């Protein structure tokens, strides 16, 4: 039984058809990516999962229909959504506070994670005082500390420069090996998807449908070197081909 399963999800905003047909599944302890062109409807899919929007189709969590959205997912939105008025420590405890954990207990729960997330010494800083990479790590810390069944990560590294992004991808892969979160990641970045995922769903341009499901057979830990690196770049090239061949379909898109 899959942890999360979507069957034929559809969603339109008014007359704008955004999701045409999305079926996918994520198994427990699996890292799955959704790769698709900008504006395809990837973030919209997360809105359906978190209950912010409603669509047609069926969603199952551990085999049961998904109804109480708040319970299963820890959601990291596309922008880091750190609150500028809260210090980093208080930003990371936000999810726990909403769950009703007392502030002091919440702090003792997040404190040991600061080292692992490379944020030691910045507990009392405001988000504006942090670099882009640190902000993303703080947002990720706020997400994982909620200890929900599954992580939903919407382009966590999209706003970072190439070097920082590469460093963050390595760091996240390492973190994931320790914690084995069940995770669904949205990204534009083919290399990121291949580097981090067990499986990848490639979406078409809007209205989005799943055009391909790709297994990533590379061993972990993922080392970008030697024969594996060649295998990875072959996979990346294949996916890029699929994505680029999707583009002409945009020509039929009247909007």
């Amino acid at each position, binding site marked *: 039984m899959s942890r999360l399963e979507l069957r034929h999800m559809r969603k339109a905003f008014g007359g704008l058809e955004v999701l045409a047909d999305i079926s996918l599944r994520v198994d427990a302890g699996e890292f799955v990516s959704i790769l698709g062109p900008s504006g395809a409807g990837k973030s919209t899919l997360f*809105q359906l999962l*978190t*209950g*912010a929007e409603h669509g047609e189709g069926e969603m199952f969590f551990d085999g049961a229909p998904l109804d109480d*959205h*708040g*319970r299963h*997912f*820890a*959601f*990291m*939105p*596309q*922008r880091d*959504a750190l*609150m*500028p*008025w809260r210090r980093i420590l208080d930003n990371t405890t*936000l*999810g726990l506070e*909403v*769950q009703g954990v007392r502030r002091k207990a919440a702090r003792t729960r997040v404190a040991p994670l600061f080292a692992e997330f*490379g944020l030691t010494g*910045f507990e*009392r*800083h*405001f*988000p*504006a*005082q*942090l*670099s882009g*990479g*640190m902000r993303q790590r703080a947002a990720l810390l706020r997400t994982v500390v*909620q200890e929900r069944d599954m992580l*939903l990560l919407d382009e966590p590294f999209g706003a970072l420069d190439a070097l920082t992004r590469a460093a963050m991808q390595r760091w996240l892969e390492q973190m994931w090996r320790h914690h084995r979160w069940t995770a669904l990641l949205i990204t534009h970045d083919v290399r990121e998807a291949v580097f981090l995922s067990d499986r990848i769903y490639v979406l078409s341009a809007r209205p989005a449908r799943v055009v391909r499901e790709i297994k990533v057979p590379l061993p972990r830990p993922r080392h970008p070197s030697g024969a594996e690196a060649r295998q990875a770049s072959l996979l990346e090239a294949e996916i890029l081909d699929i994505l680029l061949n999707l583009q002409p379909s945009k020509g039929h898109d009247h909007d």
Partner: protein
Amino acid sequence: MVSSSFNPRQLAGFFAQAAPAVISIGLALVAWELYANYSGIKPTVLPAPSRVLEQALVNRDALLDNAIPTIRATLIGFACSLSAAFALSMLVDFFQPLRRALFPVFIVSQTLPLVAIAPLVVLWFGFGLTPKIMLVALVTFFPMLVALVQGYEATEVEIGQMLRAMGAGRWRVFILARLPSALPYFFAGLRISITYAVVGAIFAEYAGAAKGLGIYMLNAKNNFRPDLVLAAVGVSAALTLVLFGLTVLLQRLAMPWERAAGRQAAGKGPQA
């Protein structure tokens, strides 16, 4: 770390910032002094600033005596309007249709000419504190309401989405995200309204009062004492400046993250 006390460098910076304003005001005063003394104009028409200052000192007890009711009307009126604006802004935020029902009424209330309204309100409510409070509230209520409602709406969409995904209800979202997001708008509104508040109070007194800077100005004018009118104007300007300064100070205390962000922009923040 963030400290709320001033250090000498900040003070020096403040004076450096204030210097152009001080110089231009100083030059205007000097020009006025020269013109009043040497153009042959009568002091009963245009008194020199030195004379205004001298008469202000001579009459300082009367000025102070009349400033206190004005300060009281300003502060009480402003506090009333602030509480009302806050309560209503929350209602409007939770029940959007209210906005369409109420805003046109408030917009009309803003277009009423104060000159016409002030005597009427005094006529209805007498020479006491009530009409002053009402007029101060009338001129400050709407700017504060708009500032707050706009501020709530400036909340980052992603923050709201994330909080709801965490399981927060509307009230939690309001307290955790919408209210703090509105703070910069609130203080911008506060800075504007506090200046309106003083003007509103003086207008109300002008229309009829036992005591106050407004009635003091009116009496001085009727006694052909423009020097005392100007002295009272000076007191009201000083009052406005002090209140304005207080709002700036309050904002600094209430929003320490803004200054933290400023220091980061100046390149003193951490690198990583």
